């Protein structure tokens, strides 16, 4: 079933892709133009996706509830990191994401936090102090 659904999804994306390509036109110079290659890619992709819908191959077992929840929690931590990196500054955000991911992976809470702090500080020293990358210690929230 999952394979069929994926086939439908890929088919729709490929169809939209090939359809959108028709609008790309350039009036000058180039023989090929900007739309031919996407159409050449999109149409076989549609055909293959369709074949997966009709003759699905293989089976997929998705993770069960609690595991799915863990994955969602980890993803949330990663997205939060991307959101908060600039406001919070590098060491704080990084320590938090390391600790969060470690805990989602069943690490003991205190040790996870310690690893987060140690890891983030050593990465900060490495990247900011030794390599001279412009990473702020304090984020925009703290006026850094």
């Amino acid at each position: 079933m999952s394979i069929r659904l994926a086939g439908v999804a890929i088919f729709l994306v490929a169809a939209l892709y090939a359809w959108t390509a028709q609008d790309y036109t350039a009036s000058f110079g180039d023989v090929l133009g900007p739309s031919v290659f996407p159409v050449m890619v999109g149409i076989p992709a549609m055909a293959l996706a369709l074949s997966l819908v009709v003759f699905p191959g293989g089976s997929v077992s998705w993770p069960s509830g609690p595991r799915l929840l863990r994955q969602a929690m980890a993803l949330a931590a990663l997205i939060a990191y991307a959101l908060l990196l600039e406001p919070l500054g590098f060491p704080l955000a990084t320590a938090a994401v390391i600790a969060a991911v470690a805990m989602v992976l069943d690490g003991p809470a205190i040790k996870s936090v310690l690893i987060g702090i140690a890891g983030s500080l050593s990465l900060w020293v490495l990247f900011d102090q030794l390599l001279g990358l412009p990473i702020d210690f304090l984020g925009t929230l703290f006026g850094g």
Partner: protein
Amino acid sequence: MEILTSLGLGFSVAVQPLHLALLLFGCFAGTLIGAMPGLGPVNGVAILIPLTFAFGFDATASLILLSAVYFGCMYGGRISSILLNIPGDEPAVMTTLDGYPMAQKGQAANALAISGVASFVGATVAIVGLTLFAPLLARAAIYFGPADYFALYVMAFATIGGLAGVDPRKTLLSALIGLMIATIGLDPATGIPRYTGGSFDLYDGIDPIVALVGLFAISELMFLLEKTIKDRDTAIKLDTWIPDLKVVFGTGWATVRGSVVGFVAGVLPGAGASLGAVMSYSIEKQVSNKNGSFGKGDPKGVAAPEAGNNSASAGALIPMLSLGVPGSGTTAVMLAMLISLNVQPGPLLFERQPDLVWGLVASLYMANVMLLVLNLPLIGLFTRLMAVPTWALMPLVVAISFIGVYSISNSTFDLYIMIAFGVLGYVLRKLDITLVPLVLGLLLGADMENNLRRALSISGGDYGVLIASWISIALYIATAAFLALSVWLALRDKKRAADAS
């Protein structure tokens, strides 16, 4: 003679202090990455690429570092196979079959030494092959025109998934998805923005490096979260690292056979190290499994696949360097780095940047010796480091990936792209769609379109030019034959599975 001069130049590049230091670090880090379950050459190399940019290394130094890591992973993969019965990376799967039983019988030191020596021999055979054949292939490839390159890319996409029982439709689909992603951004020939949805952040297209780190590192984290995290598997203790030399050298011929088979598998497009290991194991089994000792701890069953996977991984560098078409997942990732540093592999690379090519080759000879030395007496150190628990290791890997990606453009936009690719990679892998063709499509898409453009502007828009030369015709025939073979194999496997159930 010419080759000796080139090698001499290579060694003069390789012995520069920075290169030597990177080589040693890469060998050490690679062995460690390879030995960690869940981290292998593809994600190890992918994570390190943004770091090489951050350090500001040039293409030669970066390539030396990444190749050392790649080779190190091939050595390291066997350690956890033998001691934990968990392959450190995919090509090391075959090593568990006889390596773990050997360790259970109290012969862990022998198994580790055999695999170390076999890795050394396998890699050396392949590097000698690389030295001899890569320049020849590059010389032949100079005659390739744009239409021939287009055909070569078609072949690469069709074959990269390999023959190993995967539904060929999914492999092709993966490549097409990669090509679709590659067209995002400004069209290089006409300057028209395609598929950007009006976002200026996408005008430059998707940075393949950002996509790669997401596809391999983040999706690996998702996979890890899905599995039960068992209490740490107990590794078989190593009392001594000193092996019984008689046993080690008794596997000589198995090693030689494995090396040759692996090399051939590596050079073929799309096969890579995993197939090299599988093929050398099964051939060795047919040659020397006289009394059914394979699978129960036969030293030859350790030597052959280890020689095979190391030899294949070095062999996979040949098409990557001389044609610009990688022969395996890890070499595809290395290609991404070279393209990002504005180095276009291919036949002209040998003429324009001989110091890079030959510096790399010479470094590989040296890396191999370093790895042998690191892996025999220091094996105890690696087994202890391997015991770092996953919950402590993976978050650090994730943090390093994030910093690396952020340091490329200093924008959080890339971080979101990376996370999105992580989810995409996870879903595709769950659907049994391999990611390597996607990466290849993403990398070579622009070049493929350019070659099509060039071919058509030479012919004035006549599509007949695509099959006008014997080179392209031969490549299309090879592609068709390969696809027919893989469809046949897939159908046969399906029938067998149906018969068995």
